[in-house]
């Protein structure tokens, strides 16, 4: 069985969000980069668990990004996975990225493709669906559980107002979120092993980007908090009703 895990590099969750070049570029100064938490905690760890249950399985990681993404891939390889593929581009259009992953997927003939539920920077939640469409596979979005029995997967996924259990025959594309697995910390052996795992760099295929970012904007700052004394809760209720019109 061959598993492809999509990994993306995102700013650390505590990063200060600021923009440069007339608000057209994310300000990377002082930013720590991490593996997108959904990719790391859920899809990668679940793939590793599947390989632990079936050592014949192979796990490939794929990232679409420039060379700056390599430390992140090594970090991911330290958790597990056999080799990594980096598609060398810094285009950020979801369709462009999905088309690159779909190309890697077609070349590699994977049974299972995992993505995170979304990235914590662009929050599109769209790569998994696009890849699924481009490789013509079923798509399980927002999965919270994934079990495999031969080539039949049993999954639980989030739907509006609840969850759904379903069965699907591989190949399938799955977007992973909380519930799929528990976060792991890489150990020394993993970190050492990651250094020598193959990291293949491939050039992107020609695809037209369908979107481009024009500019960024920060939300307006709050005016400041109005404090109400704890023994005067009625005043808070009055403010919420009359001033804020929120209740």
């Amino acid at each position: 069985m061959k598993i492809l895990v999509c990994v993306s590099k995102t700013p650390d969750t505590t990063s200060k969000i600021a923009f440069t070049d007339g608000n057209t570029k994310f300000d990377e100064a002082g930013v720590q980069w991490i593996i997108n938490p959904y990719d790391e905690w859920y899809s990668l760890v679940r793939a590793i668990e599947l390989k632990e249950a079936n050592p014949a399985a192979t796990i490939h990681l794929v990232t679409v990004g420039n060379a700056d993404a390599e430390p992140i891939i090594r970090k991911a390889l330290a958790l597990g996975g056999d080799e990594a593929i980096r598609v060398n581009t810094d285009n950020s259009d979801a369709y462009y990225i999905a088309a690159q992953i779909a190309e890697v997927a077609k070349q590699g003939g994977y049974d299972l493709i995992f993505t995170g539920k979304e990235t914590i920077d662009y929050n599109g939640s769209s790569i998994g669906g696009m890849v699924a469409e481009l490789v013509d596979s079923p798509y399980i979005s927002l999965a919270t559980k994934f079990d495999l029995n031969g080539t039949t997967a049993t999954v639980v996924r989030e739907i509006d107002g609840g969850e759904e259990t379903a069965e699907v025959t591989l190949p399938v594309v799955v977007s992973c979120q909380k519930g799929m697995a528990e976060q792991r910390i890489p150990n020394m052996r993993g970190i050492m092993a990651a250094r020598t795992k193959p990291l293949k760099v491939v050039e992107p295929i020609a695809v037209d980007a369908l979107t481009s970012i024009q500019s960024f904007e920060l939300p307006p700052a709050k005016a400041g908090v109005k404090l109400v004394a704890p023994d005067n809760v009625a005043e808070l209720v009055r403010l919420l009703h009359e001033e804020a019109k929120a209740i």
Partner: protein
Amino acid sequence: MSVLIFIDQSEGHVKKSSLEALTYGADVAKQLGTTAEGIVLGTVTEDLAALGKYGVSKIHQVSNAALNNVDAQVYASVISEAATATGATVIVFSHNQTGKAVAARVAAKLKAGLVAGACALPNTSNGFSVKKTVFSGKAYAHVNILSAVKVISLNPNSYKTVATEGTAVVEALAVTVNEPKVKITAVNKITGEVPLTEADIVVSGGRGLKGPEHWGILLDLAKELGAATACSRPVGDAHWRPHHEHVGQTGVQVAPNLYIAIGISGAIQHLAGVNRSKVIVVINKDPEAPFFKAADYGIVGDAFEVVPQLTSAIQKMKAGA
């Protein structure tokens, strides 16, 4: 040229987020000087013609019972075919669970640029750019769509529903409905609860409540307000509350009218998921809690005393009003 809005339904009922998408799509159509049409899949019990009051002139219905459950692949092929057949150049979804499953597939199928998580009308003065939330709510991006056909999925609770007069023409649409490859074996809907992303009011608790046995005061307040309940990540991780209640950068992102945070410190990752709330109230015993900086109203006090008083003060207000 027209705008096609996907109307998401659950057990025959049109969702609130779809009414927002309808209003939004109708406004996009007005901007472009064209008509707005809806599409609904599966068996619907509601009066579809009445949805005309949100500004759509026509509703295409594919009332095949096989479409009562969402299958991303089947839905995408039906909606894409419908979009092509009706000449739609803009397709609008809600960025809810269904939208997240389907919109991206439709976009890829039609080679249409997608803005997922839109929060305002497009700017068409120079091209076609749509504002969306990025960095989990810490910022916005204006994204140009470069393709002829465009797909937009609208964040729930970010566009106000406006109902006026009007009825829509409801028409059956003949499209190919494929056999789903995913077999659904069980559906487990949480009934009687306000869905978190659609709620007007959210009451949320953190580690300050000290344990699941203390959630009663929060649930009472939520019940009094008709609010959905949420929690911080450690509360979800410790299984004090179900994990679908976890809000923040790595949980659900919400934008209610009113967010009441009880015993939550206001870590940057928590704020990311809630700072688009219109009004934020913080109840925390620590005056230095970072959440106060992001709040509109606050009480520095012990949640175990303040929250029950708040519930009864609201009861009193309602009785008096």
